[in-house]
C-alpha cells in the first residue's frame, strides 16, 4: 500500500516533469527563511548551474515550525538542509536520513552575553537565564551544558533556559543574560539594535570544543538505492557546491541574488551582505565532502548527553561519500 | 371625598420625529378626584397612553402643568405615589412570583418581615396564594397579569395607573379580572387611572370616562358614570349601562368626524 502511494506521488511528479521539460526535478527544503545562509543554492539556481546539470530545482524556504526531516518524510522534498544533531535524532526516530554533502565546515553558533549581566566565562552561567532555540536546535546547547555539568531543569546551581523566539529581544530587554546567536545573523541584530561589541561576550561553540555540524544535505536512505536518484544528487551537489564557491568569491552579488528571491520582502541589503561575508567563513574549509573527523566529534558530543542524551547509540550509515566522490572528481 | 389628586392644565406634548412634529397631546384639562376610577378610551394615537405616562413622569410635557397630590409628577414619582401596570405583565423571568412582587419593596427599603407580610397579602388579594414560588413563565397569561397588578399594589401608593393591562387576554379571563379589579378597588380605596380601547370595559369599571380623539390627541368628552360604585357583571345588561356606552360611542365618533 505504501508503495502504491509512493508510486502515485512519483508518477504525479514524473508526469509533471515530462509535461514541463526533460530536466530532472529536485526539490530542496531549507532549514530556515530565505537568507544568505543559503546563498549557494540561490546562486546556483540564479546563475543557471542547476540548469547546466539538467536539473529543475525548486527551493522551498523553511520557517519556525517547518521540520525539514518531516517534510522529506512526507515526500515534500528530495533533499533537505538540516543540522546534524537534529538529523541524527530523527534517525533514531526511524527516519533514514543520510548526509550526502556537508558544505558548512565550521559551526556558526554561539552564545552571546551581556557583560553587565555578569558573564565573563562559561563558569558564570550558573543561575543565569540563557536563551536557546528549540525545534531540534537545542541539542548542541544541551550537550554543552552537560559537559559543563550545569543542569537545565531550572534547579539551583543550574541554568534557567528560556525558549527564545525568532529574535534577540530577550538580551536587549535584559530578560536573559545570554541568547543563542549565529555569527552571521542574530549577533548582528544585537549590534544593529545598539549594543556595542565591547558590551558583549561571545562564546563560540567552535572555540568551546562543542561544535556540531550545521547545514548539511540529507536525503532518504532508500532513495539512494535508486541509481537515477543518485545520479541526480551527484549533479545537484556538484552544482550547489559550484554555487557556494561562486558565492564565497562574490559575496555582494550573492547577497543580492538572495534578496531577489526573498518572497517576504523583509530582508535588508546591508544585513544580507554582512551575513554572506560571515557565512563565507564557515563554508570556506569545505569542498562539500563530509569530514569524518567532524562527524565523529559531533556524534561523540551528542552521545554524552548524560541522563538524557540526544542519541543513545552511535548511528550507522548516517552518511555517505558516494555522492560527493562522484560529484567532485 | 372630593379631594383632587391629579390635575392637568393646558397640557400639551409634541414629539419631534423625522416626519415632523406629532401632537400627541393638545390642551388637556382634567381633574381626577380621590377614589375615582377613571378610564381613558380612544382609538390608537389619541394620546391616552401618553397622558398616563405624563402623570407617571415617564414623559415630560412640552407645555402646561400636571400635579399629582399637589406635587409635580417627578416629585410624586420620587415619593412613590403610584403603582403602574403595563400592557405586558413585564415580570422578571429570573425571579419567582413572590420575588417579583418583592422587587419594589426591596427597592423602597422595606424590612424583610414587612416584605413577606405584604407579598402574602397582595397574593391573596389577586387570588394567587400558593404561587409565590413559581416562575412567571410557568403561569398563564391571566395569572401573570394578576401578579403584575399585585406587584403594583404591594407598596403604599394611593394611585394605581394601568395601561391596557388586560388588552392581550381573552374575553372570559378579562371579565373575571375586571370583576376582581373592582373588588380590589373597593377594598383598597385607591384612585385608579385605566387606559383601554374597549367600551364595555370602560363603562363597567369607571366612575369617570374620558373619551379621547387623535391628531392632535385631546379630550372629546368626559362622562361621569351614574352607575353605583358597587356593581357586578350583570349590570352590563341594564339600560343605564347601554346609555352610557352609547354616549361613549358618540364621543368617539365625533372625534373621528372632526378628522
Amino acid at each position, binding site marked *: *500500500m*505504501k508503495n502504491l*502511494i509512493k508510486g502515485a506521488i512519483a508518477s504525479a511528479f514524473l508526469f509533471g516533469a515530462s509535461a514541463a521539460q526533460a530536466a530532472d526535478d529536485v526539490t530542496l527544503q531549507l532549514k530556515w527563511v530565505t537568507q544568505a545562509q543559503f546563498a549557494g543554492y540561490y546562486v546556483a539556481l540564479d546563475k543557471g548551474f542547476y540548469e547546466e546539470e539538467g536539473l529543475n530545482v525548486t527551493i522551498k524556504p523553511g520557517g*519556525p*515550525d517547518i*521540520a525539514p*526531516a*518531516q517534510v522529506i*518524510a*512526507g515526500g515534500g522534498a528530495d533533499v533537505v538542509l538540516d543540522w546534524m544533531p*537534529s538529523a541524527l*535524532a*530523527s534517525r533514531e*526516530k*526511524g*527516519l533514514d536520513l543520510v548526509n550526502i554533502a556537508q558544505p558548512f565546515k565550521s559551526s556558526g553558533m554561539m552564545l552571546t552575553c551581556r557583560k553587565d549581566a555578569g558573564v565573563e566565562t562559561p563558569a558564570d552561567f550558573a543561575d543565569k537565564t540563557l536563551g536557546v532555540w*528549540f*525545534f*531540534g*536546535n*537545542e541539542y548542541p546547547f544541551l550537550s554543552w551544558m552537560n559537559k559543563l555539568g550545569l543542569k*537545565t531543569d*531550572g534547579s539551583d546551581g543550574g541554568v*534557567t*533556559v*528560556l*525558549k*527564545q*523566539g*525568532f529574535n534577540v*529581544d*530577550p538580551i536587549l*530587554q535584559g*530578560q536573559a543574560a545570554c541568547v543563542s546567536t549565529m555569527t552571521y545573523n542574530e549577533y548582528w541584530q544585537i549590534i544593529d539594535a545598539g549594543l556595542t561589541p565591547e558590551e558583549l561576550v561571545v562564546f563560540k561553540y567552535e572555540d568551546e570544543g562543542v561544535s556540531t555540524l550545521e547545514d548539511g544535505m540529507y536525503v532518504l536512505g532508500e532513495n539512494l538505492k535508486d541509481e537515477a536518484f543518485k545520479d541526480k544528487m551527484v549533479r545537484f551537489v556538484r552544482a550547489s557546491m559550484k554555487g557556494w564557491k561562486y558565492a564565497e568569491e562574490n559575496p555582494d552579488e550573492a547577497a543580492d541574488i538572495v534578496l531577489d528571491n526573498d518572497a517576504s520582502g523583509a530582508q535588508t541589503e546591508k544585513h544580507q551582505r554582512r551575513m554572506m561575508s560571515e557565512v563565507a567563513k564557515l563554508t570556506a574549509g569545505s569542498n562539500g565532502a563530509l569530514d569524518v573527523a567532524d562527524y565523529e566529534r559531533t556524534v561523540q558530543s551528542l552521545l554524552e548527553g548524560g541522563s538524557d542524551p540526544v542519541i543513545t547509540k552511535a548511528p550507522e550509515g548516517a552518511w555517505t561519500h558516494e555522492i560527493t566522490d562522484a560529484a567532485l572528481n | 371625598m372630593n379631594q383632587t389628586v391629579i390635575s392637568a392644565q393646558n397640557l400639551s406634548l409634541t414629539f419631534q420625529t423625522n416626519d415632523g412634529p406629532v401632537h400627541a397631546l393638545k390642551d388637556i384639562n382634567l381633574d381626577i378626584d380621590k377614589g375615582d376610577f377613571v378610564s381613558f378610551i380612544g382609538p390608537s394615537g389619541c394620546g391616552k397612553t401618553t397622558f398616563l*405616562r405624563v402623570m*407617571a*413622569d*415617564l414623559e415630560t410635557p412640552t407645555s402646561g402643568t400636571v400635579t399629582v397630590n399637589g406635587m409635580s409628577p417627578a416629585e410624586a*414619582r*420620587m*415619593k*412613590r405615589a*403610584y*403603582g*403602574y401596570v*403595563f*400592557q*405586558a405583565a*413585564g415580570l*422578571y*423571568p*429570573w*425571579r419567582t412570583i413572590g420575588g417579583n412582587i418583592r*422587587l*419594589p419593596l*426591596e*427597592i*423602597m427599603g422595606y424590612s424583610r418581615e414587612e416584605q413577606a407580610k405584604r407579598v402574602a397579602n397582595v397574593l391573596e388579594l389577586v387570588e394567587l396564594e400558593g404561587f409565590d414560588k413559581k*416562575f412567571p*413563565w410557568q403561569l398563564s397569561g391571566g395569572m401573570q397579569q394578576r401578579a403584575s397588578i399585585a406587584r403594583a399594589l404591594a407598596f403604599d401608593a394611593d394611585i394605581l395607573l394601568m395601561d391596557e393591562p388586560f388588552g392581550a387576554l381573552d374575553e372570559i379571563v378579562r371579565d373575571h379580572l375586571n370583576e376582581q379589579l373592582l373588588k380590589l378597588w373597593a377594598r383598597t380605596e385607591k384612585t385608579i387611572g385605566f387606559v383601554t380601547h374597549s367600551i364595555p370595559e370602560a363603562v363597567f369599571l369607571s366612575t369617570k370616562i374620558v373619551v379621547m380623539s387623535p391628531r392632535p390627541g385631546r379630550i372629546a368628552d368626559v362622562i361621569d358614570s351614574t352607575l353605583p360604585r358597587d356593581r357586578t357583571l350583570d349590570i352590563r345588561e341594564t339600560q343605564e349601562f347601554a346609555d352610557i356606552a352609547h354616549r361613549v360611542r358618540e364621543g368617539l365618533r365625533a372625534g373621528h368626524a372632526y378628522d
Partner: protein
Amino acid sequence: MIWILFVLIFWGAMWAVNVRLAAGPQTQLTKILVPTLFGITLLVLWEGLVRGFSISPILLPPPSMIAQRFATSLPILWEDFVQTFIKGALSGYFIGCSAAFLTAIAVDRSDFLKRGLLPIGNFVAALPIIGMAPILVMWFGFDWQSKAAVVVIMVFFPMLVNTVAGLNAKDKFQDDLMKTYAASYWQNLLKLKLPAAMPFIFNGLKICTTLALIGAIVAEFFGSPIRGMGFRISTEVGRLSLDMVWAEITVAALAGSAFYGTMALIEKAVTFWHPSQRN
C-alpha cells in the same frame, strides 16, 4: 488492505446503529451514546487508515500510539497544562473578562461612549488579534505573564461587545417599571440590567473560553520558558515526536471542552429562566 476493509465495515455498522438509536425515543442515554459512538468511529477510522496505508508516524501517528504516549507522559502534560492553562489562559481570561465587564458597565452610563466604543469594539473583535502575540511577548517577557496579556486582549473585545449588548437587552416595560419605583442607578443595575444581561454575558464568556486557550498556546510560539503546551508542541514537532504533539493537542481539546462545558453549566444554573434554557 484488511485494515481498510475493516474500517469501512465498522463505519457502516456504527452508522446503522446510530441511525436506529436516533430514530428511537430520545433519552439521556442515547443523547450521550450517539455522539460517543460517532467519536469512536472517527478514532477507528483514523487508526485503520494510518495502519492500512502505513502512514509514517512522523506524519500522523495512530490514536493508539497517542494514547500510549499520553499515559506515559502524564507528569510532563500536567506541568504544561498548569503553565499554559492555569497560569496563562485562566488568569488572562479572568482579568480580560472582568476588565471588559467593568468597562461595559462604565460605558453603559454614557450614551456617547457607547455609540463610540461599540463599533470600534465590534471591529476589533473581528481582527486577527493573535498577530499581537509577538509584540506582547516583547513587552511582557517570556513567562506566563505575556501569555496572559495576549489572552486579555483576545477576550476583552468580544466580552465587551456582548456585555454592552446585554445591558441594553432589557424589556422597555421593565425599564419604565424601575423608573416608576424611582429606583436608584445601582438598584436598577443590580436588580434589572445585570440579570437581564446574563444570557449575553454568558455568550461572551463561552466564546472567550476557546479564544483564551488558543491565545495562550499561540503566544508560546514566540518565546517561552521550557514548559507549556505551546512550547511542547513546537519543540516536539521539531523532534518528530508527533505522538507527543497529539497528546498535547488532546490535552488542549479536553481542557477546552471542559472549560466550555463548565461555563455552559454555570450558564444553565444562572439563566435557567431564559427561553433557550427551558425545556
